[in-house]
C-alpha cells in the first residue's frame, strides 16, 4: 500500500485558483469562466449524447421531405412578399427556425432539469469559483452549439435540394443561432420553476401550436387580423420570417424588428435565468 509514502501533496509547485477579477454589478455572480462549463458539456456530448444530436438533425429533414416534396407537389407555389416561392423553399426556412427552437428548448428544459434536480451538476459547479451567470451562459452556449450542428446539417440538405434561392441564405445559420439563443435563455429560467417531469409537458403543450401556426406551413394572412397579432407576438413567427427572408433573398426592413425582438428576448432571458439560479443555489 502507498500509505507509507509521502502524500505527494507537495510534489509539484502548488497553484492556487486564480481569484475571479470581475468587477461591477456582475461581481459575485460571474467569474468569467464560462468556457469550463462548455468544455465539460462538449466532453459529455462527444461521448454519450451524439445519438440525440443525430435524431434532432433528422426530424426537420423528414418534415421537409414529406411536406415539402409530398404536399409541395399538390400546392405548387406560395406568395412571399409579392414573389411566388416554390412550396418546399417556402417551408424549409421555417423548419430551420423550428429546429433551432426545438433544439434550444430541449436542451434548456429536459437536459437542464435533469442536471439541476438529479445530477446535482449545478451544485457542483457552484461549489467552485464559478458563479451562476457562468453556469447559465455555459449551458446556453452548449444549446447553441447543438443548434449550430442542426442548422449546418439542415443547410447542407436544403442546398442540395436547391431550396436556397439567394446567397443571403448563408446568413440563415447565424440567424438560427439567434433564434436558439432567445429560446434557450428563456427555457432555462422557466425550467428553474419546475418540480416534476410532468411540468415539462406544459412547455411542449405551448410549443406545438406555435410550431403549427407561426407561418410555418402557410402565410398568416389566412387568419383574421386579431389572430395574426397573437401569432406575431410569438417568438417563433419572428424567427420564421427572419430566416425565410434570408433564404429567399427577399429581405425586408422588418428583419431589423425581428433582430430587435430576439435581442430583447435574450437579454431578458439571461437576466431572468441568472436571477433564478441565484435564488435556487445561493439562497
Amino acid at each position: 500500500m502507498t500509505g507509507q509514502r509521502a502524500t505527494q501533496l507537495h510534489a509539484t509547485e502548488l497553484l492556487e485558483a486564480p481569484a475571479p477579477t470581475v468587477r461591477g454589478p456582475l461581481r459575485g455572480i460571474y467569474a468569467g469562466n464560462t468556457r469550463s462549463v462548455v468544455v465539460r458539456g462538449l466532453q459529455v456530448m462527444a461521448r454519450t449524447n451524439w445519438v440525440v444530436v443525430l435524431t434532432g438533425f433528422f426530424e426537420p429533414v423528414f418534415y421537409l421531405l414529406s411536406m415539402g416534396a409530398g404536399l409541395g407537389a399538390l400546392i405548387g407555389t406560395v406568395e412571399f412578399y409579392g414573389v411566388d416561392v416554390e412550396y418546399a423553399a417556402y417551408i424549409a426556412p421555417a423548419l430551420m427556425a423550428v429546429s433551432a427552437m426545438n433544439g434550444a428548448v430541449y436542451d434548456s428544459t429536459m437536459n437542464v432539469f435533469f442536471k439541476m434536480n438529479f445530477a446535482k451538476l449545478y451544485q457542483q459547479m457552484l461549489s467552485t469559483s464559478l458563479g451562476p451567470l457562468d453556469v447559465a451562459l455555459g449551458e446556453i452556449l452548449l444549446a447553441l452549439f447543438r443548434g449550430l450542428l442542426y442548422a449546418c446539417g439542415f443547410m447542407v440538405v436544403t442546398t442540395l435540394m436547391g431550396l436556397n434561392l439567394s446567397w443571403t441564405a448563408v446568413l440563415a445559420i447565424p440567424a438560427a443561432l439567434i433564434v436558439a439563443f432567445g429560446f434557450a435563455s428563456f427555457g432555462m429560467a422557466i425550467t428553474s420553476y419546475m418540480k416534476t417531469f410532468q411540468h415539462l409537458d406544459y412547455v411542449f403543450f405551448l410549443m406545438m401550436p406555435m410550431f403549427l401556426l407561426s407561418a410555418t406551413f402557410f402565410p398568416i394572412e389566412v387568419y383574421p387580423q386579431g389572430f395574426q397579432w397573437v401569432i406575431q407576438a410569438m417568438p417563433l413567427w419572428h424567427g420564421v420570417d427572419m430566416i425565410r427572408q434570408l433564404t429567399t433573398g427577399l429581405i425586408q426592413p422588418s428583419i431589423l424588428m425581428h433582430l430587435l425582438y430576439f435581442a430583447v428576448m435574450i437579454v431578458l432571458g439571461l437576466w431572468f435565468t441568472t436571477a433564478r439560479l441565484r435564488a435556487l443555489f445561493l439562497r
Partner: protein
Amino acid sequence: MPAPVIEATGLTKRYGDFTAVDGIDFAIQPGEAFGFLGPNGAGKSTTMRMIAATSTRTSGDLSVLGFDPADHGPEIRAQLGIVPQADQLDEELRVIDNLIIYGRYFGLPVPYVKRRAEELLEFAQLTEKRRSRVDGLSGGMKRRLTIARGLINSPKAMLLDEPTTGLDPQARHVLWDRLFRLKEEGTTLVLTTHYMDEAEQLCDRLVVVDKGTIVAEGSPSSLIRQYSTREVLEVRFGSAHNEAASQAIEGIGSRVEVLPDRVLVYADDGEAAMSAVHERGLRPITSLVRRSSLEDVFLRLTGRSLIE
C-alpha cells in the same frame, strides 16, 4: 496571533419563521481543525453553506478569508475546498475527468490540473480506478474522490460536511487517515459531524451546536473535563427498571443520568461507583466503566443524545 481564516459574529439565518442558525460567534484559526458537533438539524450544514457563500446570511457578520461572502462568492470559493454531505460527483464523467474538469471550473491551467489530478488520485488511493465510471465506486471511494476533488485548487480551508456519514467503519478509518494527513500538512479543516468519535479524532477545537445556537466551545478534552467526569459507569437493569434503579443510585458519583436503555453514573472513579452500586444491593444485568466522551458532554448540555 494570525488573523482568523473564518470569523463570525452574531451569524443568523432564518427561513421564514424558522431560525436555522441563531446568532452564533466563532473564529477559526489557520491550520486548525475546527468542528461543529451537533445532532441533525442543529444548523451545521446551513452554517457551512453560509461560509461557502452558497447561502446568504440573514444578519450578523461573517468574514471568510478576509472577504464578505455576501458579495465575494467566487473569490471565496476559489480558495475553499468544499466536500458536501451527499457526494455530488459528475456521473457523466470518469473518475480522472471528475478531477480535471473540476480544476477547470476554478480556471486553473489545463496542464497543471492534469498533473495535479494524478497526484490527488494517488492521495485518494484511487489510481487503479482512474478510468472507471463514478457510479461503480463504493461509498468510501466516492467520498475520497470528493475530498480529492475539493483539494484540486490547493484550498486554504476545507469544508467537510458530515465527512463519514453513511460509511462503514473501515472506510471511515481510511478517510480519517487521509484527513489527518491534510491536517498535518497545515490545511485548515472545518467539519460538521454528529459522531462524537469523529470530533474527538479530528478536531483541535470544536463548538457544540444545538437548535441553531452554540452551547459550548473548546478542545475535546477540555470540554470533557469541564462538562463531565473522568469516567462513566453504565448500568442496565432492563428498560422497565432503569428509572426505579436510578432513584436508588442517586448520590453515587457526581451525577446520574437515565436513558431509556441504561443508567449513566458520572464519577471520576468508575470502579468505586460500581462497588457503591453493588453495596446498595442493586444487581444490574450488565455494567461497564468507560472514559467520558463528547457524547456525555452533549447529554449534559442539552439533555439529549447526539444520535436520536
